[in-house]
């Protein structure tokens, strides 16, 4: 009886502790959201929590200004123009390669796959200088296709690793049956492997999407001012952080909205991807 009471109380205090920690974890994001809804003058004078006592400070004016700013709009579209092809290409190239690694027999397969496992952790800094050089020669420097290809290349090792492990788990009988029916490798890939591997493909697509959408460094090096995505445009503003918070706040919040929507909509796949990428 007593131990039950103790357990009840301790469970209650754990709950309370988790609520406190959870709220603490939310404070920074709430702070940015509320700051983005206050005028620059108010932000310079007092903290965002003042809106709880003076709710009339809340205004959408900053967002209105942001939508009227052609550079920010252009940057937003650049982000889309970079992220969508980089995601589609990685999914396409990696699923083809993963199929070959999982189900085709060819010389050097295991060695090549180990190289890809090795590439998983290569810091992209190691490629910046040579690729900038290469892009200069190929007339890709400063252009969106260059940014996209770099993201695809550095997304591929994780993508191939994730998909190959998943594809290899598909029961062999399914493939054999298809082969008996005279299906080509392409048909097997498109009709058997891809549909069954869809959860892994979804995880991968979400990861790649978030990774590219959120990137700053690659775009900073390879994009010109005309092809720069939102992250680079916001970073430009942070040089005068104090005086630009009415631009930076809503800009940063807009850049967060798309990833957060993706996160909440596909949470399950996101968690699966994290687990597959690290534990397995």
């Amino acid at each position: 009886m007593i131990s039950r009471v103790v357990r009840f109380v301790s469970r209650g205090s754990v709950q309370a502790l988790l609520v406190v920690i959870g709220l603490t974890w939310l404070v920074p994001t709430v702070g940015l959201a509320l700051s983005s809804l206050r005028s620059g003058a108010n932000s310079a004078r007092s903290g965002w929590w003042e809106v709880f006592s003076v709710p009339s400070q809340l205004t959408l004016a900053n967002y209105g200004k942001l939508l009227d700013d052609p550079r920010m709009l252009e940057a937003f579209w650049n982000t889309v123009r970079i992220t969508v092809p980089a995601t589609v290409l990685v999914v396409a190239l990696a699923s083809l390669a993963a199929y070959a690694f999982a189900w085709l027999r060819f010389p050097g397969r295991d060695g090549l796959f180990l190289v890809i496992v090795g590439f998983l952790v290569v810091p992209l800094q190691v490629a910046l200088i040579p690729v900038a050089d290469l892009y200069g020669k190929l007339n890709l420097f400063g252009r969106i296709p260059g940014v996209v290809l770099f993201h695809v290349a550095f997304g591929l090792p994780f993508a191939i690793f994730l998909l190959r492990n998943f594809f290899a788990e598909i029961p062999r009988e399914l493939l054999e049956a298809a082969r008996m029916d005279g299906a080509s490798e392409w048909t097997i890939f498109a009709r058997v492997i891809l549909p069954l591997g869809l959860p892994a493909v979804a995880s991968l697509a979400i990861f790649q999407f978030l990774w590219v959408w959120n990137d700053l460094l690659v775009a900073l090096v390879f994009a010109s001012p005309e092809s720069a995505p939102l992250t680079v445009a916001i970073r430009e503003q942070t040089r005068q952080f104090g005086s630009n918070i009415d631009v930076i706040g809503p800009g940063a919040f807009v850049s967060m909205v798309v990833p957060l929507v993706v996160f909440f909509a596909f949470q399950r796949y996101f968690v699966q991807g994290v687990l597959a990428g690290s534990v397995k």
Partner: protein
Amino acid sequence: MSGRGTATLAAPTRRRGARNGLLAAAFLGPAVLLLGALVAYPIVFTVARSFYDRSGAFVALGNYADMVSSARTLTAIRNTAVWVIVAPSVVTTIGLVFAVLTERVRLATAFKVVMFMPMAISFLAAGVIFRLVYEHDPERGVANAVVTGIIDAAREPGPYSSARPRNTDLLRPDGKAYVTSVPFSPGSTAELGLVGMRPDLLPSDARPAMAPTAPERGIAGVVWLDFSPGGGGRPGLVDPAERGLPEARVEALDGQGAVKATAVTDESGQFRLGELEPGSYRLRLAESSFRQPFGGVRWLGPALVTPAVIGSYVWIWSGFAMVVIAAGLAAIPRDVLEAARVDGASEWQVFRRVTVPLLRPVLIVVFVTLVINVLKVFDLVFVIPPGSVQDDANVVALEMWRVSFGGARDQGLGSALAVLLFLLVVPAMAFNVRRFRREAAV
């Protein structure tokens, strides 16, 4: 993971092998081409480039010598070391604690979502978020608002923190307190005037000051704001429009500086130090009246900037560690834990002796993943510290960009820094390859 994927599909004939080779080339071609051109070749090129200087002349290890002799790169290397030592351990520990706490508790799912959410947003946005959190002014930065609130609650700031004596010959500073330069003996009066405060900021209960009358015993006096709003006041004298300063502590010191009596002023600023032996005493206005409110921690100053930026990293990645460790926790057989409990082990012993050892492989994977990630930290260090402290917060990944693309344009030194980063992940690479081979062999 099973070895099913590595098994052969059918007995290969020579023709079939050749056909498979072509097929594999078709499936793998685009990926291998991109990996070769944009990952493999650049690694080789960067290593080679690191032996040439900015203008392309061969300097052997010259860039590496510069790297370990320049103060700027040394700071970057030292900070990266701090990051690698601190951040992964803190994040893994927090993840473990949260994973254990959320086990079989209501609200656990909501908690995990909240913790995991920062993983979805960009480092840039997180940087902007924490730049706001770490604002120095406690009126604007939430971190300092909290710290200041706690410290001021523990050590209340004095009501007269901005005040100073009108007559600096009479009252001299003694630390944050003020001591009279002339002695007073029992039966006399002291008029201690202060200035430097706005009259509208006086305590609401302050009443007009009154000049003290000489007492029979002890010392009487007044502490007041020696300033008449609108002018016309006489310095050093209590004028009708001037108000007393209540709640100020006055102490009588003997020749050795020992406190012999204390008193607190009333609403009209009057105090009375009774029961004093005959003799001469100096009067001290105690420090507590003048204590400054806490001005806030300089999170983004040179001394604290790296821990502060690491704090933002912990905020982002703790959810990742928690979710992965929680998955490992769920895989531990319940009966093992129950058996330990039945044997009389306390919850702490179960955690320490059963749970943690069984989680070891997962903890190592989380830790290694974080180490690799920490080495590449760029955006947070780029965005959170103000320009003036960027050199103090610098890390290798950021310095590599600054040197190669951010103005200096020294791609020799930049390549050397990239090679350093690459060498630092080689152990993790070996760890991954070995782990994979072991799993594939099962």
